[in-house]
């Protein structure tokens, strides 16, 4: 059984203005009321204050935003999120954000309100007031769901040939002691050019554990922005494995805020980029509480004229003692025209910490290649083996196995294409 949470645009509004002007025309829905409507207005005002980022902003330095801001987008006729929820135990509730928000316990309502009030990413703010119907996934205390829930970000029947836009939004709230697995899927469903501006909020209460696999592939003609913001309470654990092939302009921002001690996060990403694929990756771990651990591993394979940015930051505030963090960024450049920007950064305001970071960029090792060739393996095959081995470190972490096999197949096919050149 699959669940569909779609919003239909009954009165199809055709936009005529480029995005940078269209967004400013937002007006609150006349019928809207309640807390969520107020949050949206607040987000709109904050957006107006901040304005669109320019290349002067560190976080937007390399991205070519004009291609998005100058395009006229039409809202998708229907957009939203599909799930394979099957029959769920009553302790897991999936509802629209609209209807679910008012029923949320206050502590989570406040969390969402406060988080949005300090949001720096302008596009997340736009998602905030533009998204018509987000999704709320709520796991009650101590719920342990063995199987993973899959959510697909999609537009079911894109119509017309105009570029369209949609704003998926999911909010996961895990109460104390919950263990859950989630797959977030954004893959090709249309040949139409579009812009997806997605937002994922995650709240992990004490001792909760979430494993998120985020897959993005086959969206070469698409601009896709996604922000994932996770708040971690005491002893919680957040693990995120993501795989992407990039897109026309693709940006992923992951922000983890440690709000309780002894929590941990593990962010792992594999990007395989070719053609004119662009992928801008930002990850921040804010150690607001002590004794937390953050781990980041980002691996990128670049071919063709692909471009990528890996911008990771670990921020340890004053008195967040005994924090531990590790950042590792490894990049493999396989063509003359590919380009990578890497910035593994540290901001440390506490003294009793162990923080390290490393970045390495290079090509396939000649002596390794020679070793394989000397054993009668063709050059192409040897290159494939070595590139695949580079990718496997992340692929091996993907769960469940069915998904892992699927990703492995995609990566293999992609790499076969790359090493031939």
């Amino acid at each position, binding site marked *: 059984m699959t669940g569909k949470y779609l919003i239909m645009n009954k009165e199809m509004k055709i936009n005529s203005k480029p995005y940078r002007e269209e967004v400013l025309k937002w007006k609150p829905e006349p019928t809207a009321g309640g807390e969520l409507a107020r949050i949206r207005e607040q987000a709109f005002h904050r957006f107006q204050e901040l304005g669109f980022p320019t290349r002067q902003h560190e976080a937007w330095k390399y991205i070519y935003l004009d291609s998005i801001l100058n395009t006229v987008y039409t809202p998708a006729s229907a957009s939203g999120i599909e799930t394979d929820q099957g029959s769920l135990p009553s302790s897991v509730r999936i509802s629209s954000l609209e209807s679910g928000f008012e029923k949320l316990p206050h502590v989570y309502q406040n969390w969402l309100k406060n988080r949005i009030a300090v949001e720096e990413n302008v596009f997340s703010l736009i998602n905030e007031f533009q998204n018509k119907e987000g999704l709320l996934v709520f796991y009650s205390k101590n719920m342990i769901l063995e199987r993973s829930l899959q959510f697909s970000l999609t537009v079911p029947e894109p119509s017309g040939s105009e570029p369209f836009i949609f704003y998926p939004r999911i909010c996961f709230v895990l109460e104390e002691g919950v263990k859950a697995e989630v797959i977030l899927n954004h893959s090709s469903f249309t040949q139409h050019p579009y812009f997806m501006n997605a937002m994922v909020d995650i709240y992990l209460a004490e001792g909760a554990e979430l494993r998120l696999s985020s897959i993005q592939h086959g969206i070469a003609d698409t601009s896709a922005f996604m922000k994932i913001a996770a708040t971690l309470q005491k002893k919680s654990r957040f693990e995120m494995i993501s795989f992407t092939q990039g897109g026309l302009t693709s940006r992923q921002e992951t922000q983890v805020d440690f709000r309780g001690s002894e929590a941990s996060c593990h962010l792992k990403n594999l990007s395989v980029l070719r053609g004119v694929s662009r992928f801008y990756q930002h990850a921040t771990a804010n150690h607001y509480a002590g004794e937390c651990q953050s781990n980041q591993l980002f691996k990128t394979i670049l071919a063709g004229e692909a471009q990528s940015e890996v911008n990771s930051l670990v921020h340890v505030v*004053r008195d967040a003692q005994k924090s531990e963090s590790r950042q590792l960024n490894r990049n493999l450049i396989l*063509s003359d025209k*590919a380009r990578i*920007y890497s910035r593994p*950064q540290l*901001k*440390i305001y506490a003294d*009793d910490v162990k923080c390290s970071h490393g970045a390495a960029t290079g*090509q396939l090792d000649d002596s390794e290649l020679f070793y394989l060739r000397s054993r009668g393996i063709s050059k192409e095959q040897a290159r494939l083996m070595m590139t695949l081995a580079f990718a496997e470190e992340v692929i091996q972490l993907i769960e469940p196995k069915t998904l892992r096999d699927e990703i492995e197949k995609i990566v293999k096919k992609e790499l076969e294409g790359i090493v031939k050149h």
Partner: protein
Amino acid sequence: MSNEAIKQFADREYKYGFKTDIALAKFVKGLSEDTIRIISHHKKEPEFMLEFRLDAYRRWLKMKEPHWPEAEYAPIDYQNVIYYAEPKQATEKPKSLDEVDPELLRTFEKLGISLMEQKKLAGVAVDAIFDSVSVGTTFKGKLKEAGVIFCSFSEAVQEYPELIKKYLGTVVPVTDNFFAALNSAVFTDGSFVFVPKGVRSPMELSSYFRINTEGSGQFERTLIICEDNAYVSYLEGCTAPKFDTNQLHAAVVELVAMDNAEIKYSTVQNWFAGDPKTGKGGIFNFVTKRGKCQGKNSKISWTQVETGSAITWKYPSCLLMGDNSVGEFYSVALTNGKQQADTGTKMIHVGKNTRSTIIAKGISVGHSNNNYRGLVQIGKNADGARNYTQCDSLLVGSHCNANTFPYHDIQNPTAQIEHEASTSKISEDQLFYFLSRGIGQEDAMTSIISGFCKDVFKELPGEFAVEATQLLGLKLEGATG
């Protein structure tokens, strides 16, 4: 480590905070085209220099002061800076050091700089800059014999205008940044070094900068050129008296290395850092330093020991244009009190098989703010480029911070780039090891920190390595607990 120990560790005095009472012959306050004309006139500069300055000034007027470094400071009033301060001397221009005001020489003596010829044994040629002008250069004759030109910048403008015209502003263009433009407009003096083809400079060259006048800014300009197969090692040191007001030091250093040439540039910077408790006063050290490895197989190596200044903001960089050229950056940045440092390097790889090494050690003590910021850029045609970067931070006490902002921009598939960094505190285990062997806390900490900086100190020329170790020890004095 006990809090008491950390507190004492952080409380230390600035030894070079004295002021020399010496009459000023001329000084110019405020900034305008007239100021620039006066400076140029005082220095009897040729027309092209005045044009260079005025052009820089006009461009500077259109530029905005940058605020992106991780440093906070009150706005600088550029009209309230003394742009030119010259000590009064018996004769218009001293022919030899005997004619230099003895008070002035004593100042340098106090600083441990031997200007007097009888101290030749020290074996180092020194150019001493007091406020805005060079007061004397030692060993000129001996250097000239070898063919090395080492003199103050003003002298060079008079005597070798064609060299100045050819190289000035070629590495750091006038419009490079706000402070470089300001320097280009108002710079007063500095050192000039020219090592002709095939010459190895017979001795270490050294310049010493001292800001003495309250409210004055020091805008010095250093230009070092090494022709084919030439070699020079150059060291600069800096101090200033204690004043409650901030003083601006906006220098520009340009290095040019031709085929197979090598330039080694070392800095021991110990400007007054401001009051460690209130953060009042101190030098704003906003410096642009850049070297161009223009020729094949050329090499430029920067070594810096940064212990002073209220705010340090500098990124000694290498433009690796020539094939097989090498860039190096070794840095120790120690911040204490309310000091803020945002320092690092840029390695721009343009030529083939270019290599660069970056070793940066940051030590934060007290309430200070210590940042490493560095760029490694591998251009499209820089086949076979290599970079190795290591930046480590050490935190002493829980009120300071250490940030690391490395930037990599890689456009060539044959590049090999490695970057490693770590942040930690002085390990309790190491300290315990020392203490259990009867070594006091202060000595233990100094030893551990010296060990932490060893990779950089070993790059300093002989005597200066000793000086730097002593300086570090001095800076860490009072750590007994």
